[in-house]
């Protein structure tokens, strides 16, 4: 790892002031579970690392009658053990706990989970976020078994690694970001994730000198769940995830949101699928129909077609779990 300067300011303002305005010049450190590895792998070689560990307000959780606000530095362990979150958001608890390594849950933060860099093996081996050689991506003709089936019109083919992003978007979450002017702005989480168009961009709408400070989730009584398909239950990321949230009145679903994870460069809003369930009774067959429509528009590469049936299965199962319907087989 290249050497760097380090500071751990006490306030957000100081932290912002010590950040540079170009990517890679400085890096923000939260729990370090992703960043320390990226530094060792020289995916980034900043001049300075700015740690958020001393900014206590970033660890606070505030609740009102219709909203919960979670500080970006809340660890995944604290998130999944919080009583309000357990009561209202089983999808978040499940998504966090499925990361399954207590060590990562204890050190890793919610902000870090949303901002973690992709696991694409081209990226992690120094080929850049877009894995291009002479302006052309290496991925379509290369080993793309873990790459995107949605949002892959190029130039990006990696998949978003965040497990918390999809259920948070399904729940209608937004994030607070503090920028260089010291002002806070709020962005729907759905707009926070971006598909980069060039190597100088990253995967979120953050600027290099901006800090994600809090995540806000409306307490609107939505049934919610996630269903992940994983190769192994620990120390790895899912192949495909479906997060769903809807209002259930009787057996009818409304305000349906279905968000896929680990299949596109961002969490992927399956809006057609959501519409197909809107106003419908949640049954085995409506769930299956909705799951089928969630696969529409998938564009498989040479090695990742297996993700399509996984999307279908995970959407169907997530809907049934959220509605409390027992699954047969």
């Amino acid at each position, binding site marked *: 790892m290249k050497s760097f300067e380090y500071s751990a300011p006490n306030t957000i303002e100081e932290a912002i002031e010590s950040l540079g305005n*170009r990517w890679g010049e400085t890096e923000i450190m939260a729990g370090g579970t992703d960043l320390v590895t990226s530094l060792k792998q020289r995916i980034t070689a900043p001049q300075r690392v700015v740690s958020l560990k001393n900014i206590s307000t970033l660890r606070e959780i505030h609740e009102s009658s219709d909203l919960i606000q979670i500080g970006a530095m809340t660890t995944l362990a604290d998130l999944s053990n919080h009583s309000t979150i357990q009561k209202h958001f089983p999808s978040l608890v499940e998504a966090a706990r499925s990361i399954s390594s207590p060590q990562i849950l204890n050190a890793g933060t919610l902000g870090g989970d949303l901002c973690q860099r992709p696991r694409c093996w081209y990226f992690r081996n120094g080929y850049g976020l877009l894995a291009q050689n002479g302006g052309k991506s290496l991925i379509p003709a290369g080993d793309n078994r873990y790459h995107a089936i949605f949002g892959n019109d190029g130039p990006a083919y990696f998949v978003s690694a965040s497990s918390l992003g999809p259920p948070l978007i399904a729940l209608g979450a937004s994030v607070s970001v503090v920028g260089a002017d010291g002002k806070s702005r709020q962005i729907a989480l759905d707009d926070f994730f971006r598909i980069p168009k060039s190597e100088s961009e990253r995967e979120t709408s953050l600027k290099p000198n901006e800090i994600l400070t809090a995540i806000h989730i409306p307490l609107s009584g939505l049934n919610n769940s996630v269903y992940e398909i994983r190769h192994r239950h620990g120390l790895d990321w899912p192949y495909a995830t479906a997060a769903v949230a809807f209002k259930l009145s009787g057996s009818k679903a409304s305000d349906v949101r279905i968000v896929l994870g680990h299949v596109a460069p961002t969490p992927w809003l399956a809006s057609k699928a959501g519409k197909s369930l809107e106003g419908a009774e949640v049954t085995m067959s409506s769930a299956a129909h909705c799951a089928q429509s969630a696969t529409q528009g998938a564009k498989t590469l040479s090695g990742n077609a297996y993700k399509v049936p996984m999307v279908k299965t995970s959407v169907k199962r997530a809907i049934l779990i959220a509605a409390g319907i027992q699954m047969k087989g």
Partner: protein
Amino acid sequence: MAKEDNKPLDSGISRRGFLKGVGAGTVATGMMPGLAPENAQAAESAKIQGPGEVPITLRINGRNRRVNVEPRVTLLDALRNRLDVTGAKKVCDRGTCGACTVLVDGDPIYSCSMLALEAEGREITTIEGLGTPEHLNPLQKAFIENDAQQCGFCTPGFVVACASFLEKNPNPTREEVRSGIGGNLCRCGTYAGMIEAVLDAAEVQKGGN
């Protein structure tokens, strides 16, 4: 989205700009005579350290240990290479195996994925702090009795992770033990023995046989 520009790399960030709020010209030197304790602490935190070696104090197994490390040094490397606390092992060095597990304020973390500077002010417990060959703790004994290791290289990390798990789950089911050790890997595959060891140690702690 940020646009790339062509400014030289070192022009964009300032060493001094953000010290404004701290209000002491002495801060940059790291010497803060006469500052009230809370100001001293603020100045300490806002200070830019490195890239050269920085003197820090780590609290390891109940003792304060002073060490000089560059900011890039991980807690694992500080322990092993600087402080001769070699129980935590380096295997993957990227947060995917658990061999380097230590407790920070009682919670297991991967010491390969935490900078030494980030661990300042926290209570660090390594395998050396859990028991000694003469005074093994019940879990260490149970590992031996259940033949819960083969090559033994992952063992310190497992024992530390299991000890913290047991403390939080004194009455675990087999399934809970399985997920409790989900952050550690054993290439020899001695999981069955380890799960038995944790269940046995739980019994001993409850005052059973």
